[in-house]
């Protein structure tokens, strides 16, 4: 398993020992022959990178279980959508889910940002834009008769779901995306990853905002 050498002194110490071994082998080989030293350097570096990548991809994902919150007859639905909340498909799903129960709907709109701005913690613009989309979405839901409240979430939809589950809980998650070919989330398999990570029923709704009205 990949360990972060900056996490603790013990990990930094282990990293030091590995560095000593790494350079000792390279220096020993290059003393025999320069090209042998280069070969050892390439092989060792490749092994280190391979092991690091392998340990990262093998990290097991523990599905997060979410307990039911609220009253017995209450059903909490977490809707994660960027700009497709107003779609007829999603509204239909929400109507079906709330039949015969008292529903609580939380809409989370991830503050999508560029990687550079995200790493620099420059997310004011992204959050403001997400807030605008959220306000517009909530207004559309209200016009359709859906009681909902909303939050701006993390730029990573999976993280945004995780954050919302901690505070809101949910009996079901509805992820609304654009159709295949136009959705970055589907390209990144956000729905599949969410199903692996969260032990909550997940419904994927495809909303085609460009489709002609029926």
């Amino acid at each position, binding site marked *: 398993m990949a360990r972060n050498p900056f996490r603790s002194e013990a990990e930094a*110490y282990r990293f*030091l020992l590995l560095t000593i071994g790494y*350079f000792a082998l390279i220096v020993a080989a290059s003393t025999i022959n320069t090209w042998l030293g280069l070969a050892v350097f390439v092989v060792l570096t490749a092994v280190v990178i391979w092991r690091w990548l392998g340990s990262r991809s093998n990290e097991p994902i523990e599905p997060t279980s979410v307990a039911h919150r609220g009253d017995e007859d209450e059903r909490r639905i977490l809707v994660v959508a960027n700009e497709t909340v107003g779609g007829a498909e999603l509204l239909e799903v929400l109507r079906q889910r709330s039949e015969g129960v008292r529903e609580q709907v939380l809409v989370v709109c991830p503050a999508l940002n560029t990687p550079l701005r995200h790493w620099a913690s420059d997310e004011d613009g992204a959050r403001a834009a997400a807030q605008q989309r959220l306000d517009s979405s909530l207004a559309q839901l209200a016009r359709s008769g859906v009681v909902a409240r909303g939050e701006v979430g993390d730029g990573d939809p999976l*993280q945004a779901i995780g954050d919302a589950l901690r505070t809101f809980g949910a009996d079901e998650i509805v992820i609304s995306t654009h159709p295949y070919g136009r959705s970055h989330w589907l390209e990144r398999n956000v729905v599949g990853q969410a199903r692996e990570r969260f032990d909550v029923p997940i419904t994927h709704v495809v909303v085609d905002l460009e489709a002609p009205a029926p």
Partner: protein
Amino acid sequence: MSAHADLVVHDSSHHHGPPIANKSSRIDATVLGMLLFIASEAMLFGAFFTAYFFVRVVNPEAPEWPLEPFHLPVFVAGVNTAILVTSSFTMHWALQSIKRGNRAGLQAGLVLTFFMGLAFLLTQILEYARIGFNPGDGSFGTIFFGLTGLHGAHVFIGLTLLAMATVRAFRGHFTPEHHHGVELPGIYWHFVDVMWIVVYATIYLI
């Protein structure tokens, strides 16, 4: 279903002081700070290493490296390397001691680490005086003093941190549960050591 949206409204009328900082939930500020620090260090040392390898590459016909008249004190630097590596062992021992509640071990470990670090730095300064060339003697001299001097500056910072941790250890600070003030200098010290391994292997041995 009722036809209104229940928006979350943040009531700020009872809040005093500046607004609560908005923080990304994915990257902790301290982690980001450490990553940026390491990135800047990597670029700093990387610039010197790039210059060093450039000088070597443009002299491919050199039978010996470094070129005449430069001679590096490989043996003394090797002894110095052993001292610095040993100081990491004592640093680790100090940390392990306080985790087990052994205050004497913590104090002894920190004192030994500090004096070994000091010995490394003083030996390097003495070698500078006896090495026979100076930073103005060609590109090799400039890069040699630049790289080793840059590392020496990091050792000096590490020694300062160690000195503070040592004084605190003798004043009764740190417990098996709370020893952050030793942990952080320890991490820094190990990385100073790692950088020296890279510098020594590259400049003196390969």
